[in-house]
């Protein structure tokens, strides 16, 4: 069950036996292993979600896939090539605010295109602002935008580079439920149009099932590892609000929750102990 599912499509992103151990800066003998024995594969055009209890190293995995963090052991492959340094074929949507506060929304969306020297950066950025529904807000600075609008800007910023792999780290966790459903549907629409490989991190099981082709469950930290994998065989296109009422959705939810529940309780107990 833990071996990566081999799909017909080529593998976009592949983590093999990845472990991440952090040394305590003040006391090098103290080590903390965030994740270990993680093997996962995301096919080209596949939408994979990773769920797990709080503090289980989900973001660590994403940083490894992005090339921001080198794993202690194990290997990362991107379209069959071993990854060294930043993952150039990936776009990363962070959980926290990642916009440059000194740039306007438009300039933020343009940033990646500028860095790569795209000749029509401005036109492309304007187009993306419209596509995420922010036409007319080009000249606003991030602090003048609402949380949802900042996320849209981040989304446009990431997608404007047309990455083959999209990494998303709880991108909507700070949004209210309505805005969130709207954005989830928008992301699904954009994804359906381009069919990129997506690795989506969330703690929200509903969101994971509603959006993905496959859901991976991570165990509670430290040293978390995948303990379950579920294929979501729900028809697309989906509406994240309506899909939650389907019997198949509820079945999947019950099955995944059965695996996740114990881990959540374990994670919670650890949190209480360390607090």
């Amino acid at each position, binding site marked *: 069950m833990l071996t990566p599912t081999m799909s017909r499509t080529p593998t976009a992103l592949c983590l093999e036996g990845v472990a991440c151990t952090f040394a305590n800066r003040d006391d090098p003998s103290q080590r903390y292993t965030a994740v270990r024995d993680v093997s996962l594969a995301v096919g080209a055009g596949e939408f994979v979600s990773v769920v797990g209890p709080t503090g289980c190293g989900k973001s660590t995995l994403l940083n490894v896939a992005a090339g*921001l963090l080198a794993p202690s052991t194990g290997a990362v492959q991107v379209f069959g090539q071993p990854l060294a340094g930043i993952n150039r074929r990936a*776009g990363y949507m962070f959980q926290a*605010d990642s916009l440059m*506060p000194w740039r306007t929304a438009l300039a933020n969306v343009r940033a*990646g295109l500028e860095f790569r020297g795209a000749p029509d950066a401005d036109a492309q950025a304007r187009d993306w602002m419209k596509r995420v529904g922010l036409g007319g*807000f080009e000249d606003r600075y991030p602090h003048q935008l609402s949380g949802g609008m900042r996320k849209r800007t981040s989304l446009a910023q990431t997608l404007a580079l047309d990455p083959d792999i999209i990494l998303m780290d709880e991108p909507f966790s700070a949004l209210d439920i309505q805005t969130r459903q709207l954005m989830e549907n928008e992301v699904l629409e954009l994804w359906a149009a381009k069919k990129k490989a997506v690795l989506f991190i969330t703690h929200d099981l509903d969101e994971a099932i509603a959006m993905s082709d496959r859901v991976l469950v991570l165990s509670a930290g430290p040293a978390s590892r995948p303990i379950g994998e579920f294929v979501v065989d729900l028809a697309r296109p989906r509406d994240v609000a309506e899909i939650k009422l389907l019997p198949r959705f509820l079945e999947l939810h019950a099955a995944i929750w059965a695996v996740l529940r114990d881990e959540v309780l374990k994670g919670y107990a650890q949190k209480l102990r360390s607090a």
Partner: protein
Amino acid sequence: MSWKPGPKNIRWWQAGVLAAVFVVWHLLTAPGLLPNIVFENDKQASFFFGEPIAIFGRIWKWFVVDADIYRHLAVTLIETVLAFGVGSVLGLAFGLWLALAPTASAILEPYIKALNSMPRIILAPIFAVWFGLGIASKVALGVTLVFFIVFFNVYQGVKEVSPVVLANARMLGASQKQLLRHVYLPSATSWVFSSLHTSVGLAFVGAVVGEYLGSSQGVGYLILQAEGTFDINTVMAGILVLTAFALALDAAVGRLERHLMKWQPRAGETEKL
């Protein structure tokens, strides 16, 4: 209009305070107006504290009748601007370099601390020897004052760059050079701008102190000259001119800051949609 102090007439009240100070000053110093309390002699109060009317006469003469202060003001202003410019550029360059080169910063740390805690005004005589009595020695003094303010702010600014913003820029494909240009520099300059009032003020202090310690022109020189002849009215007039000048400079900086920092949130700004 009501007389009670309020937001509408606050300017009038502020002007009133200034006027009251001058009136009291005049009453206490004008020879023969009030009986002597502290001094034995009618003239002594005005000898020590000057007379407002004579002071304004002096200022009027400087600006209108003789119109000879503009040359001195220009010199002081040029010194201030040069000191600020050179000090900022040096501070920015060194701050960026040391913040991004941990080894160099670790080696140089004690020296920077030592240089910063040294009372740098005492360098003025050395600069006068090195650079002469012209503009250069004043600029050098101002630069030593401005440099550290800017340096520490840039250093802080680079260190405080949000790791998420940095990681995001790297994921967007920024090279080291682009990170410097588009992430570190804007973050550092925002800290520089937030200390603009202090650094411009210190550049001004450097210029005036430098002039006061030895020069042939500038407002500090006028004060030095007047002091040599115990012309307290001219000294006071010089101080008033310098104060007004510093206020104007500060207001100009404030305008510049508002223009440059418009991306920063200000408290109570409701513009979210």
